[in-house]
């Protein structure tokens, strides 16, 4: 769906800024809001560019720079920490060969940490794109990553 079609769904009211940005981002295969997207949204809402950029760069669910195809966010909050989040992160780092905040050279994965995902009952946990994975063990992590890789090669 083009950005214009997304805009059409919303009245040009300031309170629609966040929903619009989220939806535009969802239509972007690269998963981020390009400068042109942001400009269009700003014009549509009669807002300053800075305000739109300010919001987009503030919210953790919005992205203004390109990222990998899949974004892995490892929970880095107390419950997961206690249950082994550090191991999870280390496992992912060695598996992907990148450090926190980086993207794999093939552009497939970006590795990040995040605050509590609210699934602490199955700590340690991580989220890949929208899918939440809990009770993580090194084995399980390998399987999960493998499944995403396979999906990509298909």
């Amino acid at each position, binding site marked *: 769906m083009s950005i214009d079609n997304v805009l059409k769904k919303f009245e040009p009211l300031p309170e629609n800024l966040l929903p619009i940005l989220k939806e535009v981002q969802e239509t972007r295969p690269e998963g981020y809001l390009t*400068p042109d997207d942001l*400009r269009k949204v700003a014009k549509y809402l*009669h807002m*300053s560019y*800075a305000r739109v*950029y*300010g919001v987009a*760069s503030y919210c953790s669910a919005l992205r203004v720079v390109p990222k990998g195809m899949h974004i892995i966010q490892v929970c880095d909050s107390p419950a997961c920490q206690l249950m082994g989040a550090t191991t999870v992160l280390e496992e992912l780092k060695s598996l992907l060969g990148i450090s926190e905040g980086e993207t794999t050279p093939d552009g497939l994965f970006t590795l990040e940490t995040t605050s509590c995902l609210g699934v602490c009952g199955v700590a340690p946990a991580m989220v890949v794109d929208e899918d939440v994975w809990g009770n993580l063990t090194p084995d399980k992590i390998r399987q999960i990553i493998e499944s995403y890789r396979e999906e990509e090669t298909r």
Partner: protein
Amino acid sequence: MSSKEMVTIHIDGKEIHAPRGASLLKVARDNGIDIPGLCYYEKVSPTGSCRLCVVKIDGRPGLVPSCMVQVEDGMKVTAFDDEIESVRRGILEMILAEHDDDCINCEKNGSCELQDLAFRYNLGRELRTLPSLLDVVPKIYDDSSPVLIYDSHKCIKCGRCIKACFEIQGKGVLSFAGKGLGEYVVAGIENWADSACDGCGECVQACPTGALVEKPVYGVRVREIDVDRKVVTTCPYCGVGCQLELWIKDDRIVKVRGYDDIPNRGSTCVKGRFGLDFVHSPDRLKYPLIKKDGKFVEVSWEEALDYVASRLSEIRDKYGPDAIAGLSSAKCTNEENFVFQKFMRAVIGTNSVDHCARLCHASTIAGLVRAFGSGAMTNSIEEFLNADVIFITGSNTTETHPVTATYIKRAVLFHNAKLIVADPRRIDLVDYATVWLQQRNGTDVALFNGLMHVIWKEGLMDEEFIRSRTEGFDEFIKVIEKFTPEKTEEITDVPKEKIIEAARLYGSAERASIVYAMGITQHVTGTDNVLSLANMALLTGNVGRESTGVNPLRGQNNVQGACDLGALPNVFPGYQKVTDPNARRKFEEAWGVKLPEEPGLTVVEMMYAATQGKVKAMYFMGENPVISDPNIPHVKEALEVVEFLVVQDIFLTETAQYADVVLPAASFAEKNGTYTNTERRVLWVQKAIDPPGEAKPDWVIVQDVARKMGYDMGYSSVKDIIDEINRLVPIYAGITYERIRNGEKLQWPCPSPEHPGTKYLYKDRFNRPNGLGKFHPVDFIPPAEWPDEEYPFLLSTGRILYHFHTTSMTRRTQALPQYVEGPYMEMHPDDMKKLGIEDGEVVRVVSRRGEIKIKAIASGRVYSGSVFIPFHFAEAAANMLTNDALDPISKIPELKVAAVRIEKIE
């Protein structure tokens, strides 16, 4: 405004009286208790982000930021104790941890609020316990703006810039981006250049650190401590009259700050702050020039003055005084205008002295004098803040009176005012408007009559006011009757619903203020347009009170003063008619000569008189008619045929090229005097530096010419001239040199040295002989030239923010051409598609007078069928095309409507 209730509070045991609701931090500081704080900025709402200003208040738990606290009676405050001070020191250290305190190479060194506090709290590097965090603070160094530089490693995220841009300038260009320690200030999406920033510099002025600094547009990087002196003076560009502080080093302007006083309270636009380097342009005229064998050669003043005096005397003696005509200057001071018109009248013996006001507000004077008695802004700029409704028509205020526009925007944004914009173009203020009436150019009388029709039909007029303070209502209302919303829509193209909405808004406002400018005046019906607006104010009783009125925004820095001081062919200084024998007698006595009785020639008339051989010599002081007058081909012809032309300017302008003698004048920075701004306020112009070469103040030059012609005016200083003005001009009688130099910023009428000046006019009576305001029945008359088959497009002309008139000054600056470099034409995308014109393509524009080639830009600001060309640029001068048809009463040309054809260049 009601006086604030006073309360008593105690800070560290000291008893303090302050208005209830004032910021505790400000109250403390005003009373010598220097609570630290970096994010507080008096002109904007408190942010409370730096937390340095924390204090203890009895009865409240913990520490409270004093900037966020409003004082209440009985408050007991501890501003200083060991605990608070140690907390503050801790916070300050945190700020320093995210700061790159490379003061040694920082423009703020010596005037930095952060540096001052670091010193005060003894936080030298070796005394800090926190390590630097700079490696995790994003480094954004944005120098993409033509006028400023942002450095995130110097930014303390106080937000003052963001609030200054929004709350003072009403723009809201800036925001924070990022989060946490990654927060920084952004303007555009990619950088500053990618934003709506127009370079006013309010944010720079608000920044407490070196995070936002001016680019060295004046040639050198300087710190405040490097500056030799600071000179407060008045901006030489537009009629707002901003007070500026020029920072001078080595006799050059090196930086400009807005000075915190009426009328601008520290604000400026981009021209006033970043556009004064023309003063130091190598192109400045430094020596008198005489054209010998078609070429200018530098000559001595002696030779030049002798030559001018003898040629003028010769021509006067041969053809009579009316063979000489002069253009005075709205760029020059009051004193210079007074001297120039005195020269023309008393020395040459003609009333043929005029100036650019003719092209500008001649119709205002004609109209408002008829309706109210005086031809000036009825109210003051700051009063816009408290208006309920502001009706703006034919004024692109944000671009042409930018600082006045800040008051209007603030009224809308923060004081609940409603804005009605009636303008054929989608100007920036439309974004702030409740209603936008997009009328066809030249249909204003119909539109206003239509509005008044609704006001009248709906009983929204002020009958008591009409009865007690006006005359002529009955004849007037007859004309209004036929302007039903339907009929008005037909003429103006404005939907009738909008007409009704706007009429109700204006008609039911308690305080409604009309603002207008060239979109109203520059028509063959200019006087009618003005009268019609005056009718609207009279009908609703919106005149003679605060925050109401009819407010023509005067354009040039001193066009108000040039008019006031008689640079007009029909009046002596102070609007005393040349045809009035009593007035004449008074001036004859004062000047010791016989004065001409008949009104002289106006600007456009002079040019025709020249081509008709009636005018043989001309003396232009500070005007550039070859670009600014309508129908340039004809102007050039006139200048070619006159026998003798003197041009006195600061640059060798397009007009000066035609001169026989060019006299080098001192610029505003190089002389003393006064300007009268658009709100009738007399403002001091302070000499800051010496003129280049042998250039001299205009009044000195003119007095010298007079002396050579045998008339000694006897002035040895500006004060002498002001004294004479006080004696001869009743409205200026009380605006004495002493008062001006004491910092008083008086508004005329000010009839005596004790008089406080007049904030708004006509409080109790109008200035007409019977004291009543007069309704005038005005009917709609179409413009002199409408689009037709041959010339299908309507051309309108005007200005843009970044350039001034003929650009003699603005193109000689470093910064301004970076915003807009040269000529262009705004054209509706639909029309471009129809004609197969690409965005940015150069096309030929042809009118009955001439043609130009110009770049067409697709723009949603103009409606389909119309085009807009800024008249600034000589290489594609709009006035090659404009119509010099005149308003019969005021003789203003129709610069806002002409018919043109647009051709693709194959």
